[in-house]
């Protein structure tokens, strides 16, 4: 298995391999981890589809759940965009 890839189980017990791009926190939602991952789906020549879930640990299990709160999702998106902007700034320097 590649370093960044994990296998997740869907509710209908199917195995799906996803590539983890990032695991991060968002200000205001301390204690929560958000996982950014991809299935390798290209949207066009320059863009790729990615997915964000809340990463929850429960004993021996991990679960990836959707972000239902609109405000929370906005903040997560903002955090991702800020991260991208900072990385681009670093690359330019």
């Amino acid at each position: 298995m590649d370093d960044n890839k994990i296998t997740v189980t869907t509710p209908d017990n199917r195995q799906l391999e996803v590539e983890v791009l990032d695991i991060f926190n968002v200000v205001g939602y301390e204690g929560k981890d958000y996982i950014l991952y991809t299935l390798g789906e290209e949207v066009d020549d320059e863009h790729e589809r990615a997915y964000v879930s809340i990463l929850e640990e429960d004993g021996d299990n991990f679960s990836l759940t959707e972000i239902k709160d609109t405000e929370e999702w906005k903040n997560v998106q903002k955090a991702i965009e800020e991260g991208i902007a900072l990385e681009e700034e670093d690359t330019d320097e």
Partner: protein
Amino acid sequence: MNNSDRVYQELLQRTLKQLQQQITSLERKNRGLRAITDQTAVEIEGYKTEYQRIAQELQSYNQRIEVSKAGETGLDFIDDKVDKIIERQQDSVDKIRQLESLKQQVTTKRYQRKIDKQIKHQQQIIQRLQKKHGRLNMAQRVIMYPKYYRTMRKLKLLSRKQGKVNVVEANIKDNELLKQTLNPNSIIDNIKGAFYDIRGQYYQKKLSHAQDVLERVKEKHGNIHLQGANVTVLPKKVVEAKRQNMSSAPQTTQQEPVEQPPPIILPGPQPNPDAHIILPPEDKTITAASLAEEAVQIKQQNQQAMQQQQAQEFKKAA
């Protein structure tokens, strides 16, 4: 050859031989004389060197005793003073002896203490006179060797000046350093550097956290349940950058080209490649089931496309 010729020849030969002997003898004498002259030359050099040394000594001696009249008067005055000092020192020494002998005769402690006090007083007088004597000796030397002491004094003043110059130079260096430190450009550079350090540390912390959590997640292989996700779209270069960040092993600059999946050829009319691609809304949410279903659909479509391609190739070959 007749007899007279032979005789003349013999005579010439004899004369020649004699001359040769004389030349040899003279050369020997000459060598001897040369040796003597060489030796004499060395001796003369030695005498010359000795002469120069003594002349210098005499000169310095003359310099010493060449004191001006004023200097002579001064020396006489100092000599008188020195004599008086010596006399007074001797007096004190005598008094001390007398007091010590008296002390031995005295029985009471009170008188002994009194005598000790007086002895101490005389000893102090001697010390003061010795110091005075030292100062007078110094004054004598200055009069007798004025050049020497002038030079020494100049040297002393120069070293004091040198000391002051060193202090000033050190101050200048300190000021230059301070100037450099307070230079706005260097301050800004320092601030920038500190800022980038902090930012770097922040990124590192974030990355470490992400990698730690990923390790924990990977340990639970088989126990990771996908229940829902939110969709977003990212530029490919961002995805690649994040991929590299998350890799535990350092990435090489030349990576193997990633195998692109074959293009999905859906049955039916093909879409216009020039048409504007409408991206899905960013706030679209899907469930895990739809996500899984979509993935399966894509896989099936890929398989179909491959099969179609293979069929076409088979037809061509046939």
